[in-house]
């Protein structure tokens, strides 16, 4: 992969003959260690102390035959996917409502949505699921565990989506808002018609990453007796006393589905980048924390660093303007604090914002644009000022 080669070359030169020999040697040792680990695992499986041979085909066959798939895995997978889809739709609605609520100029709505979102992010999903499960059961609702799983996932992942909406708006270049206010739109109008639509495109890849989290978290449902893939594989395993084998099969199914979704999340950003002025990059770690420190997209920062002419000194804007705790309100003050004085435009070099965004231009225009940019850029002096 491209990013991988770029990263490795960051730490070492292309090795010479001596280095290549050394690497070759360590490679063989590493491969031997890995092979040794695999052999050790197989030995343990083959002959656990005081247990049965777990590699026995008699144990694997009931876990893999057609009946196991039609009666257990596939219905379980369907239940998992059903809960995931309902939860995703619900959490997008929840996230949009409270994410926008947190950005509205009305202080009351802002505070209420803020409290709800932060509360839902702090409480463990399993706690919510157990609570709703018991609550629905007492209320006499049918399939209480299903609704408990769905509601628990909606509340948690919805609050994450709300943060994604907020960070999407926070990541937009300030010009978007300035332009819409200059056109005579009110704050709310600018938010709803200009900023939020772009934020939604920017958050889509991260939302797909979140989809993986939803799918993984449905497995929590098995603790509250929801008959998902994990629960079904446990049931099958307790019938034939081969629970290790059925769990392995279920794990493989989970892995394949989640891995395909992750690939989709990596493929989406370049599609979405054309439709928004904000970053469309999934975070390596989805935003999780309550009161988290901005969830700055470190990958995007790294790319900026790599793309600079002198290979360094990229972030001219304070972290406050990035990520889910970003606020677009205080940008003028921050800019001043970072060394740009608006009242002295002639002696100041305007810090450039978000250089990473390159709009797709046809090739024949490109040289001209690059020439202009280089002239405006001004060279070394500006790097110092920009801080």
């Amino acid at each position, binding site marked *: 992969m491209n990013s991988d080669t770029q*990263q490795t070359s960051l730490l070492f030169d292309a090795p010479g003959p001596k280095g290549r020999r050394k690497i070759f040697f360590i490679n063989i040792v590493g491969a031997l260690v890995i092979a040794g680990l695999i052999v050790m695992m197989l030995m343990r499986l083959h002959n656990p102390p005081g247990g049965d041979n777990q590699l026995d085909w008699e144990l694997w066959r009931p876990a893999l035959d057609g009946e196991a798939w039609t009666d257990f895995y596939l219905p379980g997978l369907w239940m998992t996917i059903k809960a995931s889809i309902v939860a995703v739709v619900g959490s997008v609605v929840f996230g949009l409502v409270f994410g926008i609520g947190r950005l509205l100029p009305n202080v009351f709505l802002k505070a209420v949505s803020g409290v709800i979102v932060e509360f839902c992010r702090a409480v463990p999903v399993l706690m919510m699921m*157990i609570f709703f499960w018991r609550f629905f059961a007492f209320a006499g609702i049918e399939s209480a565990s299903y609704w408990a799983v769905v509601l628990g996932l909606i509340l948690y992942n919805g609050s994450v989506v709300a943060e994604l909406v907020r960070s999407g708006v926070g990541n937009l270049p300030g010009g978007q808002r300035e332009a819409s206010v200059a056109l005579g739109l009110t704050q709310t109008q600018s938010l709803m018609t200009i900023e939020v639509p772009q934020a939604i495109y920017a958050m889509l890849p991260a939302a797909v990453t979140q989809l993986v989290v939803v799918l993984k978290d449905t497995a929590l449902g098995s603790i509250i007796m929801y008959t998902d893939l994990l629960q079904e594989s446990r049931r099958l395993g307790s019938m034939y006393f081969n629970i290790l084998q059925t769990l392995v099969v279920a794990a493989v199914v989970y892995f394949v589905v989640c891995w395909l979704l992750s690939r989709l999340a990596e493929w989406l950003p370049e599609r979405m980048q054309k439709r928004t002025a904000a970053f469309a990059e999934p975070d*390596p*770690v989805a935003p999780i924390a309550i*009161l*988290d420190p901005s969830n700055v997209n470190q990958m995007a920062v790294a790319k900026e660093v790599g793309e600079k002419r002198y290979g360094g000194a990229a972030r001219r804007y304070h972290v406050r303007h990035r990520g889910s705790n970003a606020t677009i309100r205080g940008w003028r003050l921050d800019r001043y604090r970072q060394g740009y004085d608006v009242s002295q435009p002639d002696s100041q070099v305007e810090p450039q914002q978000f250089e990473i965004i390159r709009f797709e231009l046809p090739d024949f225009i490109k040289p001209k644009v690059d020439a202009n940019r280089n002239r405006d850029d001004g060279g070394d002096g500006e790097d110092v000022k920009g801080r």
Partner: protein
Amino acid sequence: MSEFLQLMGEYDVLGAFLVNIELTAWSALFSLLLGVLLLMMRISPVSSLRGLSRVYVEFFKNMPLTIIMVFMVLGAFAQLKLTFSDTFAKNFFWLAVTGLSLYTAAFVCESLRSGINTVPLGQAEASRALGLSFMQSASQIILPQAFRGSVAPLGNTFIALLKNSTVAAAASVATETSSLMSTMIEYHANSILLIFAIFAFGYVILIIPIGILTTMLSNKLAVRR
């Protein structure tokens, strides 16, 4: 209020939170060690180690934690006879710590890797120009800066770990919070809202200081470039 006091007197709620904190602390320690090891492997020039680390991270990133915990008890313990202690409770506790550590290490590795990406190329080039070897430049130049750059994602990972420690219920750790909440609701169905509120606010109170600390540290430690 009397209801609250009665519940707190009858059940060891604080003890349950302590179990979760212990689970979190041990898992944080082990996953940090394993995560750094995975990171070193991931950025090393040796392709087999790079591949192993990558497979590990991909595997655990796309695997539900619940299935890992269930596997630790029903697979690793019941079938493969993996034991840490003769007492059942202790044994399940350490099985849960193992599961949590294995799972979280992948996310620690990813967090640190995102921190590595914030270290400018010039730093590595300069250390190479000074003649430092891979291990020297990694341990003395790159990793310290990477740690400082990845405080925020690391903090997020550990907050998630604290919340994930409730999943130890799937590994038969019966004394931790989610199991205790389940039991309490079973016997005191009338005060279900109060019971949920006690535990939910317990987590809010635990997590807010970690969040504030992470914010402070990440602002204090970030390398301004």
